[in-house]
């Protein structure tokens, strides 16, 4: 899964950028520095989110197929497709937010 790898890498780079910054500034920056465990937790969270949304999408797909062949009711199809839609929407929104945060850091004048 490319998306998971990408976000995981972004999280790592983000962490590296943070530790790099602490070398220059003293004091308050130390408080904000995330530990390695935090970063791992964060990328785990992202990974879980992505794999969960992929699972929901797969489910919607199989329910739609079953609905077309008459094995699932219209309600089941609508429920599955809507769950997938909402999951995808929030996953995309969160990804956009993460990417824009990353870009914000990239644009930071050194």
């Amino acid at each position, binding site marked *: 899964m490319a998306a998971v790898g990408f976000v995981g890498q972004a999280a790592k780079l983000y962490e590296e950028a943070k530790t790099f910054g602490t070398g220059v500034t003293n004091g308050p920056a130390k408080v904000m520095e995330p530990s390695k465990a935090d970063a791992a937790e964060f990328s785990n969270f992202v990974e879980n989110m992505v794999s969960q949304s992929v699972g929901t999408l797969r489910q919607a797909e199989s329910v739609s197929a079953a609905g077309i062949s008459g094995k699932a*009711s219209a*309600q089941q199809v*609508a*429920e599955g497709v*809507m769950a997938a839609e*909402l999951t995808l*929407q929030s996953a995309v929104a969160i990804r*956009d937010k993460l990417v824009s945060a990353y870009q914000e850091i990239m644009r930071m004048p050194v």
Partner: protein
Amino acid sequence: MFDPLSAAMSIASSGLKAQSQRLRVVSENVANANSTAQVPGGDPYRRKTITFDAELDRALGASKVQVKSIGVDKSDFKLIHDPSHPAAAEDGYVKLPNVSALVEMADMREATRSYEANLNIIDQARKMVMRTTDLMRRG
């Protein structure tokens, strides 16, 4: 643990399922409103009834609705005098199903309204989730 809005959608979906079962029973009754017995003097189609039951969904931690049972209406059959009918008994009376078109239509309306109410809940929950995720897009 479960997202309440997804739970609301899932519960409303169980309502949709229950109401469509109800409409199915109504359609059976309407379609068989004139179904008489196969043998002379026998019993005709008996009106079916449907009852619902709250069902606790443990994964969701909320009560869904389910069809408890599809039973039969034990009220008396209608009798008409028609000696030429194949299902007529010795005395010339034919038993007709205990289906009343008026009752079935009322039941159908109620099923439709309940279905719409559940659809509205799904629509509303969907809008609430959408509006919330939209917060992340702006700004």
